[in-house]
């Protein structure tokens, strides 16, 4: 696994070791969407937007951009425009290909052949258009954007210097190239260099791989070499958490602000909290349960996060109200720690129900219930405090503590849910079985408060909602509900038959 990892890292490095120094080019400062970012990030964003990928034919986006800027004719014939819809391909008179990617030249000719139709489409309101018509207009926009991209340097630079750089690129003259870069940017700002490193290492994909590794180690441990695989699993989970934390740390440094201000960042942070909770749990239990939870939740959140990461710059500038403030930082961090620990409790409850059905040993079940109660108390502490701190931020910023805004209510709901369950259990009103079912449903409450509130589209916090989230969310809730219902039924039948 480790060797493979080193290879993984090296291969990333080797691909960039082209004849010309791309590193210096990658760190050029580009002002884009209000942020000064390295050209590397800018190139990635453009390439993802056009082709849905971060690399092109094994070469980094920076290389592609350099070509687009300095060797237009060659860039125009490279297949980069991703057109997955066969109707659009047909409408533009393009040949069907396996990669579904087309060059600028092809797209340009295709669009030009249908100029009158496109002009007509542009007159219509967007809502009146069919999906493929909208996609055709989208391709048209992207083609214009790409063409404009090739026409002017993305950075502020003297025309002469830029032309010299282009000549060096075309000639493959490494010395002139380096001199040209040095003329533009004598000293690389450390933030830019670190961001290029962040792009290259891609810490969250790496930690995703490690979390998946934990899961595989667990599976292998079930078959043979139990002890060895357990140790490997712990090592991998620790490694995953360290890389995860490193990535978050890098982001904090690059953006010079607290780690959580967007939905994407909350996903990253909650994932880390879960991994850490899982490690603590594993330290106490040493039976693989912590490893299981850490790998499953950690990997799942990374997968969800990847979807958001590909949606655009993952380090956007913040709207004015989020522009930092001590209480905002404390509130958001506390509440996301609460989300993370609540998810761990929810996962534990799944295990409890499965164990109670398959292998009911009263002592082990009691111990697991105690661990759930301990984690719930912790989750209650963080969610309740986080919610109240949110109120304090609101009071500091807006002069009012509580406004029944959807996001506030969502956070409150998680806290109330825990209060309800804990009081029910401690007063004996909730049997352990129903307590476990309630704790299982915590995942639903957290998911709804976290993602569902944004779907409402009202209130102060309705940021970062993307289409399709609602469907997935509903599916998740139904699945969790079904799981709880079916297991409760199974347990009930089994325990009744034993009593009878």
């Amino acid at each position, binding site marked *: 696994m480790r060797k493979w990892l080193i290879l993984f890292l090296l291969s990333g490095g080797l691909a960039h070791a082209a004849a010309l120094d791309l590193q210096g080019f990658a760190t050029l400062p580009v*002002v*884009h*969407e*209000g*942020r*000064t970012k390295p050209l590397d990030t800018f190139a990635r964003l453009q390439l993802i937007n056009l082709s849905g990928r971060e690399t092109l034919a094994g070469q980094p986006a920076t290389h592609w951009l350099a070509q687009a800027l300095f060797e237009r004719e060659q860039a125009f014939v490279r297949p980069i425009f991703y057109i997955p819809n066969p109707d659009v391909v047909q409408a533009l008179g393009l040949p069907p290909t396996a990669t579904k990617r087309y060059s600028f030249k092809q797209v340009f000719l295709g669009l030009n052949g249908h100029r009158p139709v496109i002009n007509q489409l542009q007159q219509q309101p967007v809502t009146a258009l069919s999906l493929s018509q909208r996609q055709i207009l989208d391709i048209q926009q992207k083609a214009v954007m790409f063409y404009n991209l090739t026409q002017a340097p993305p950075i502020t630079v003297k025309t002469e210097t830029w032309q010299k750089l282009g000549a060096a690129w075309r000639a493959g003259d490494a010395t002139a190239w380096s001199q040209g870069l040095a003329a533009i940017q004598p000293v690389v700002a450390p933030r830019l260099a670190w961001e290029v490193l962040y792009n290259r290492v891609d810490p969250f994909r790496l930690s995703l791989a490690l979390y998946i590794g934990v899961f595989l180690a667990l599976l292998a441990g079930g078959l043979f070499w139990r002890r060895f695989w357990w140790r490997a699993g712990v090592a991998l989970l620790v490694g995953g958490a360290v890389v995860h934390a490193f990535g978050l740390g890098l982001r904090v440094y690059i953006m010079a602000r607290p780690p959580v201000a967007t939905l994407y960042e909350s996903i990253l942070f909650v994932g880390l909290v879960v991994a850490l909770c899982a490690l603590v749990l594993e330290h*106490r239990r040493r039976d693989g349960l912590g490893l299981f939870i850490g790998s499953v939740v950690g990997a799942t959140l990374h997968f969800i996060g990847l979807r958001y990461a590909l949606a655009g710059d993952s380090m956007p*500038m913040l*709207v*004015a*109200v989020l*522009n930092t*403030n001590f209480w*905002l930082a404390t509130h958001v961090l506390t509440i996301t720690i609460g989300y993370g620990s609540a998810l761990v409790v929810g996962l534990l409850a799944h295990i409890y129900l499965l164990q109670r059905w398959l292998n009911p040993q009263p002592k082990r079940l009691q*111990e697991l219930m*105690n*661990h759930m*109660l*301990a984690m719930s*108390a*912790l989750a*209650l*502490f963080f969610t*309740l*405090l986080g919610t*109240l*701190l949110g*109120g*304090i931020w609101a*009071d*500091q*910023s*807006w*002069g*009012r*503590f*509580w*406004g*029944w*805004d*959807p996001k506030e*209510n*969502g956070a*409150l*709901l998680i806290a*109330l*849910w825990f209060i*309800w369950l*804990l*009081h*029910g259990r*401690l*007063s*004996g*009103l909730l049997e352990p079985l129903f307590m476990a079912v309630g704790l299982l449903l915590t995942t639903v409450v957290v998911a709804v408060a976290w993602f569902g*509130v944004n779907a*409402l*589209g*009202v*209130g102060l916090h309705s940021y970062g909602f993307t289409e399709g989230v609602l469907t997935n969310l509903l599916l998740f809730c139904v699945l969790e509900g079904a799981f709880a219902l079916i297991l409760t039924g199974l347990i009930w039948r089994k325990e009744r038959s034993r009593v009878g």
Partner: protein
Amino acid sequence: MVQKSKPTLWRHPLGFLARADVFFVLLGWLMVILVVGTLAQASIGLYLSLQQYFYAWVWWVGGVPLPGGATTLALITLGLAVKLVRQRWRWRKLGTLLTHLGVLALLVGGFVMTLWTTEGNILLAEGEQTDFMEAPYRVELALTDTATGQDVAIFPQRVLASGATLTHPALPFSLQLQTYCRNCTLQRLATPRANPAARGLALNFELLPARWRPREEENIAGAIFRITGAEEADGLYGVFEFMPIPQTLKAGPYTYLVAMRAQRIPLPFSVQLVDFEKDTYPGTATARAYRSDVIVTDGAVQWPARISMNKPLRYKGYTLYQASFVEGAQDVSILAVVENRGRLFPYLSTFIIGLGLLVYLWQRLPGLWRP
């Protein structure tokens, strides 16, 4: 946490509320209200959802009265208070006790603040000055003397209704509201109104009641009314909010401006906007920060202040914060104003709850965690 109920608790009439099972049901109900009230915001907006769910004593579900948010919270608060009084205090229970105390302070503070909080907005273009704020979502029908600029008569929203007759001692005439709608659609009549007495807006337009919109600011109140007792000015008039053409009527020596406008709440000081500034991120229209430089005047005292995002101005129990702005030929700064007397409660209770939960974790966690 909550002890098992003992028969002795029944002796006190309020003891019932302190029972664990009663609390369990109440809290469950509160969660139902919370979820329904939040979902409802997507269709009816925050303001109505507050009135119908969270601040409501009664929640009407298809004609059936059920306890609303205020009732449920009040019962929980009472139960908690009774429990705290009647409970035996022990060191072992310190964490629970502190947490419960903190929650009680939070709930009581919440009630106090809800009763005593007034909210409003101030809209100022650069150079303008005001000594009132506008209440959100409540309107008033105001008659102003155009010569002095003074309000002569103000009819608040609660007296406005279709068919109502409005009179005021300072007015020589009366107003009969033919149509009043909190949210109106303006409709141009195909032919001018047949009624020969129709004036101004009422001549060519009709106001039709429309559904309440969830984005509160999109609701435009309006009224069609008949003036009687003003001799030659008698007739049918129409007004609506943000009307571009002022509607005036002459009665005797006075000319009145009639306006449907946001309800005005006087402030004990005045605010003048000197300068409004907005910073954007380079190359974008996204605001990074915006701020208003104002001059506050209270009696003879005058001083400058700066209000920016997340940095409000606090004075005499009022908090003025930078809420929004309207860009145009002349920038208009929108300040939100909150008058809030129980500000300290949440801080105090958050501290106590945080401390209480920490003590609770310290007292209980080891027992649950150790083998």
